[in-house]
């Protein structure tokens, strides 16, 4: 057995025991490595892994806060929250898109139009951002989806709140609407609340500008979930803190009435409290229904809104600009008196005014006119003559003091402030000198001068109250404005003229208030949409060429309390279209029953109230679009 070159049994025994010890050492080393590693993970990195374990286990769901209400000046709700059921899709968790959508279509009776929107939003959605399938569901539909959930991964039915505007379209422009956060908005503010299903932000109007006050604080629900997402138990729930309510100066009943009273016309009504400057009504019609937006507006409805020639998406009271026409005459009267013109001085109206070799026409042959009767009859000749005497540079500052050309510090996204022209303005804008005929055009509210219905209402309120009223939409205690820099007698002349317009032998005598002891002063205006050619006076023909009808007013004449401006687009005349609306709106403030009777008679002729007519319009539009399939429209 002994080989000189090989090991012996004894040597191997020795080798064995050494190597066995070595293996024991290796084993001990491995044990030490595992123990050390474990200690490192469990002690040094304990915090990190504890957190990871908790975030595995706990699913935090935000509960969107209920939005603060909008309430009117006496606390009536203008915008509230309505409990509703909704169904969303979380794109990340969606597994079989076709099948899931198919099942949902069946369960919720989705229309082709809804499906297109969902498909489109799913395509654009980022993984975490839920896509709304349907909102405002009844409990039955909600339950139908809920029981099928195991077969519908990625579908999330929820109970939540959606914005509700009891007045519907009437407050669309005033409040704007709410909608889901866009990808752009989320990029600017990475607040996880923004992408919580059911959370909406203000997209327009006061809803947008008052967003931070209205938003509130989200609640949270902590649930323990398994790796497969099954909820084991609810750990804790912190309820949401609703946003704070916003009280507006609006008188919602008056506002709604005015909106309804505009009827089938396209126009605006603005009512201002002459004591404070509070905006009591700020109506622009026609308007979208903000409720449609809070539930996610359909493609077709959107298309209809954008193709309507009455522009329901535009807030005409703040953003519509019109030549104010003769409504500026009381203002001009103030300027004339400021320049020393005696209100008793008479100008004889022979049907026009000659300036150089051009005759500026009047609407009639009024004979001798003083300042009051010129306002009453809306005699252009008188105003031509006086404007030619004082020049428009003397009138423009008065116009500005009364609110024309002014942008007010109101929480609306955009106001258009129009133009009060003067020589400096013209030089800057056109590099031309101001001409006398420019003055003549401007003084009757044509030519370069344009203003919004809201500015006209402010002007009426300031003339009526004699105070520098600042319009306000958020209700708060404020000091009444200081006196305008005009003597009371000057203001009284303008008011007298306006009194005569309605209660004398003026242009709006048919719109006298039928309320004992209360009279209304006003001024009509008819604004040309295009230059008069030939004999055409803008009183007929295609709608878009017809004159706008305007009316500014205040009541009661004895002690002005309310001022208003009404603009009816293409209404063909202030007396004909705008003054009757103003009459009913002011009547509503004093005698609701009478005003409602008048409105109900009118609505019967128009084919129902706002909602009814809008529903009919939508149905007609839908029918006109045929089967809405291959249509593509931009949202």
């Amino acid at each position: 057995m002994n080989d000189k070159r090989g090991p012996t049994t004894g040597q191997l025994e020795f080798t064995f025991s050494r190597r066995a010890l070595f293996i024991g050492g290796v084993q001990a080393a491995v044990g030490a490595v595992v123990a050390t590693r474990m200690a490192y993970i469990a002690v040094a990195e304990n915090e990190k892994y504890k957190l990871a374990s908790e975030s595995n286990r706990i699913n935090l769901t935000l509960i969107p806060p209920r939005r603060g209400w909008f309430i009117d000046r006496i606390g009536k709700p203008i915008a509230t929250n309505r409990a509703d059921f909704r169904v969303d899709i979380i794109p990340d968790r969606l597994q079989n898109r076709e099948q899931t959508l198919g099942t949902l279509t069946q369960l919720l009776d989705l229309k082709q139009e809804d499906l297109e929107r969902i498909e489109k939003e799913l395509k654009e959605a980022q993984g975490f951002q839920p896509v709304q399938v349907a909102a405002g569901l009844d409990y039955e539909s909600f339950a139908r989806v809920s029981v099928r959930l195991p077969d519908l991964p990625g579908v999330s039915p929820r109970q939540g709140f959606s914005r509700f505007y009891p007045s519907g379209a009437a407050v669309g422009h005033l409040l704007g609407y709410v909608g889901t956060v866009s990808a752009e908005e989320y990029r600017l503010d990475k607040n996880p609340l923004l992408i919580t299903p059911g959370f909406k932000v203000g997209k327009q109007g006061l809803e947008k500008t008052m967003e931070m006050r209205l938003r509130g604080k989200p609640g949270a629900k902590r649930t323990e979930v398994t790796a497969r997402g099954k909820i084991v138990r609810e750990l804790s729930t912190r309820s949401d803190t609703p946003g704070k309510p916003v009280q507006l100066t609006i008188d919602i009943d008056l506002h709604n009435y005015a909106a309804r009273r505009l009827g089938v016309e396209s126009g605006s009504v603005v009512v201002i409290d002459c004591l404070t400057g509070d905006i009591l009504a700020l109506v622009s019609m026609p308007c979208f229904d903000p409720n449609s937006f809070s539930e996610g507006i359909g493609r077709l409805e959107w298309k209809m809104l954008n193709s309507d020639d009455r522009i329901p998406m535009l807030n005409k009271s703040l953003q519509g600009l019109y030549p104010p026409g003769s409504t500026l005459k009381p203002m001009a009267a103030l300027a004339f008196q400021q320049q020393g013109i005696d209100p008793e001085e008479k100008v004889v109206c022979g049907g026009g005014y000659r300036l150089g070799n051009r005759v500026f026409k009047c609407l009639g042959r009024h004979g001798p006119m003083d300042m009051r009767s010129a306002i009453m009859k809306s005699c252009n000749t008188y105003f031509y003559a006086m404007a030619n005497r004082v020049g428009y540079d003397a009138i423009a500052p008065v116009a500005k003091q009364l609110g024309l050309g002014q942008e007010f510090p109101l929480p609306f996204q955009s106001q258009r402030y129009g133009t009060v022209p003067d020589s400096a303005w013209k030089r800057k804008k056109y590099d031309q000198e101001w001409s006398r005929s420019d003055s003549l055009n401007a003084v009757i509210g044509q030519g370069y001068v344009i203003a919004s219905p809201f500015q006209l209402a402010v002007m009426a309120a300031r003339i009526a109250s004699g105070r520098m009223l600042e319009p306000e939409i958020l209700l708060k205690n404020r000091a009444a404005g200081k006196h305008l820099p005009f003597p009371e007698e000057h203001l009284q002349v303008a008011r007298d003229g306006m009194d005569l317009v309605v209660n004398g032998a003026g242009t709006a005598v048919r719109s006298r208030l039928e309320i004992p002891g209360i009279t209304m002063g006003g001024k009509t205006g008819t604004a040309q949409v295009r230059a008069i050619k030939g004999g055409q006076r803008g009183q007929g023909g295609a709608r878009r060429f017809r004159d706008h009808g305007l009316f500014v007013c205040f009541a009661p004449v004895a002690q002005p309390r309310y001022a208003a401006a009404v603009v009816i687009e293409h209404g063909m005349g202030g007396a004909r279209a705008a003054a009757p609306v103003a009459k009913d709106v002011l009547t509503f403030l004093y005698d609701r029953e009478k005003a409602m009777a008048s409105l109900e008679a009118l609505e019967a002729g128009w084919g129902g109230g706002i909602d009814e007519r809008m529903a009919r319009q939508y149905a007609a539009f839908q029918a006109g679009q045929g089967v809405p399939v291959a249509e593509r429209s931009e949202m």
Partner: protein
Amino acid sequence: MNGIVPAPIAALPWRVIFVLFGLATFGTAVLYSAAGGSFSPWAGNHFLRFCVLMTMAVVMSRLPLDFWKKITFPLYLVLLLMLVAVELIGFAGGGSQRWINLGVITFQPSELMKPTVVLVTAWFFDRLPPSKITGWDAIWPVAIMLVVPSILVIIQPDFDAALAYIFCAAVVGFLAGWPLIYFIGGGVAVAILAPLVFFFGLRPYQQDRVLIFLNPENDPLGAGYHITQSKIAIGSGGIFGKGFGNGTQSHLDYLPEGHTDFIFATMAEEWGLLGGLIIIGLYVLLMRWGLKVAMESTNRYGQLVAGGLTCTIFFYIMINLLMVVGFAPVAGLPLPFVSHGGSSMLTMMICVGIIMSIERHPGRKAFS
């Protein structure tokens, strides 16, 4: 003997039985908690199995060493035939199969082959004249005995088993006195070949697996998920654990295979570092016992078998624990005596039974 305890019982290797009992009981407790505080489906089964197989091991310890020596080679041949049979059954059944169903228990030949490789290599070295240990004659028979079963299990495919065979044979060769140069050379060769194999031998998806092992966080939903969740379970347990029955990782199914391969993580979440050290400590005692038996045996076959089988158990422990703490790739090896699973427990108990037999029959100095 003081006479109160009967001699045959007092003669049992109580120390190792206590160690194993400790491990199995701890495992039973963890399985009880993992099932949400229930003996079914795992804990009761586990403990019962332990008791039966422990008894089997004690019975095995009664068999003389010569018995094992005599059946070694026939046993090896029978298992080879069974591996072929499994292959054929699997082929006929139209899918890979690793076990033979014997009605009462399912029987996995590739699993039993692990201790058998130790037995057969030890048997070979015992017969080899000591002087030949450095020569070629000490290598090729081992190579053949290793390659045949390895190929058979690789076909299955079960690379882990083949790796275990190589490890077992290498350990026995090391203990038997193979020149160190074999091991150093082998280590160097692996170090050189591994990168080459990685870059030229592996398909992209296989490369991904290796990369995921090196960086599990890069693949949180795929293969890295196991390792990440296991680390979260251990790490969140801290020093004293979340308490019995309070492990969320296992109870809420975040930890995959929490009752088998990742039972250590399940345990660590509830018992913390303390529990981990207890288990490691019990394993240290077990290993020390096995190596001590090997060193105290005077019989070369007994030495090599005891050392080799101890390392077979160690192989399971090492791979499993390194995997669970994130130091080794995910492999399907359970934690001996703690994990739920019959096949591995059988193998482990066979190892223990044979080592106990060697302890009981250390041989006589006179023979050597």
